């Protein structure tokens, strides 16, 4: 099972990223756990300069923008292959 984290203080874009990620997961028929990280102390532990950010298996795949569902699907399949 993949662990996916959405980093962001709860702004509308972070919710968007979460929604798109859920759709990508459903599209692939995956089982995954989505954790929302809203605490700045934890967010700044990751090497990112802006939120929303998406972390798959503790690896930052994207930050500061809204990825499309196709992009997220690619990252998810990559993560599955390396896992």
């Amino acid at each position, binding site marked *: 099972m993949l662990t996916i984290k959405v980093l962001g203080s709860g702004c509308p874009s972070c919710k968007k990223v979460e929604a798109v990620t859920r759709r990508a997961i459903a599209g692939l028929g995956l089982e995954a756990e989505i954790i929302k990280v809203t605490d700045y*102390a934890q967010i700044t532990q990751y090497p990112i300069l802006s939120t929303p950010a998406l972390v798959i298996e503790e690896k930052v795949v994207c930050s500061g923008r809204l990825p499309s569902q196709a992009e997220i699907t690619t990252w998810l399949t990559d993560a599955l292959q390396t896992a």
Partner: protein
Amino acid sequence: MDILTFVSQLLRSGLGNLGAYLAAHVLLCLVPAFYIAGAMTALIPKETVTRFLGRNTPKFISYPAAALAGSVLAVCSCTIVPLFAGIYKKGAGLGPAITFLFFAPAGNLLALAYTGVVIGPDLAAARLFLSLAFGVGIGLIMALIFRRADAAHDQTTDAMFAGRGAMSRPALAFLLVLIALLIAGTLKVDLLTNAYAQLTLPIAGVDRFQEFLFNLAPFDASQGEEGITAQGALLIGLLALIGLTAWRGMENVLEGTNRWTLAALTLTGLTLLVAALGVTPQADGVILAVTGRFFAVALGLLALVAIARQIEPYACQEWLWESWRFVKQIFPLLVAGVFVVGVLRALIRPEWIEALAGTNSILGNLAGVLFGVFMYFPTLVEVPIANMFLGLGMHRGPLLAYLMADPELSLQSILIIATIIGRVKAWVYVGWVAVFSALAGLLYGAWVDGASAWLLGGYIAAVLGALALALYWFNRRNTRDLAARSAIIH
């Protein structure tokens, strides 16, 4: 009975204020400004600026780059905090991080455009220039005070800042045309305000409608207030329609555009065009003046449509989403804030404000700063509040002091900053912001009262130069110390 009239008077004052702020010139500024803010967030890759904020960038580049990042990248607070933490912990260090933090709310395009249109371009320019100079100044001072801690903080690689990005050419053109549209909509020059053609629409009764509106929401022209005109009422109606269509068309625009998206965009264009017209209702009909502004706005809109076709569709969808997100986040609070300001205005006696901050005194500027620190208003609401104070007789100097201190400091932001850089540094920063905001007010107030701009600019440049030199000198001594110490160890 008395209380009833009093309350209705308050409500009418609030409504009047709301109407005035939704009038033509404000729409011509705010509507494009929201779209520009969205475009900056969606179309400018953050790497174009952040690569100048790494640890190994020379200081004379990282300070200006930090300011640029503040105005271009940090239109919303979801960017400010992580970027601040990143620059401080892994990047160029405390100084540039502070410059970024200070300049972000002041160099924010929405705030600047709004200040310029509501209060005046001179105050907007002063806000921009002084917060740029003092942002760098406070950054330098903080780097000086905490130079030991700053030199010691972790020496990780700056891979975070290594990314490179470039804006595509159509995206850049798009952003520039949007900015041109904002300028064409707000600039007060003859070329744009002159009427080049005149039409009379045979619609009777519009003058009576306008009369009715003026009665509904009374205004005092001597205090710089404007009533709701018939044109304003039409624009408010259009705005409501945009809101409705955008709700259906923009909320899920990332998944794909639909008919509502197109409708919202068409209505936005129409609103800008109507706002650019000169409308004078008379007894026998409505006189429409086709101004230079109308042509400029029409040209800008056509150019936008042409360029948008060359941009990747997903980038356009991102742009629309980001713009809508800003509207959702800021506009409702702004409308509520403007209404409340209108109510308050009827309650505050001009004599109080005049006694406290009617002149450009140190006390007046400090009062402006204190009010800014202890009050917290949603984004942009500080502008109508400042305009209210101006109408009540506040001097422009203390007004600027307030405008600089208010968005910079609130209890909430101080607490977040403290978790990142520590309590001592955070409170030292707050102290300096208070001092510099008051100073900015004093300087600008002196200029308003007739002091030479060159002389004041010279003072600022001299102080900044001295600070930079001191920092340079200490840094050299530090490196020499470090080198000497490691030589002893070896």
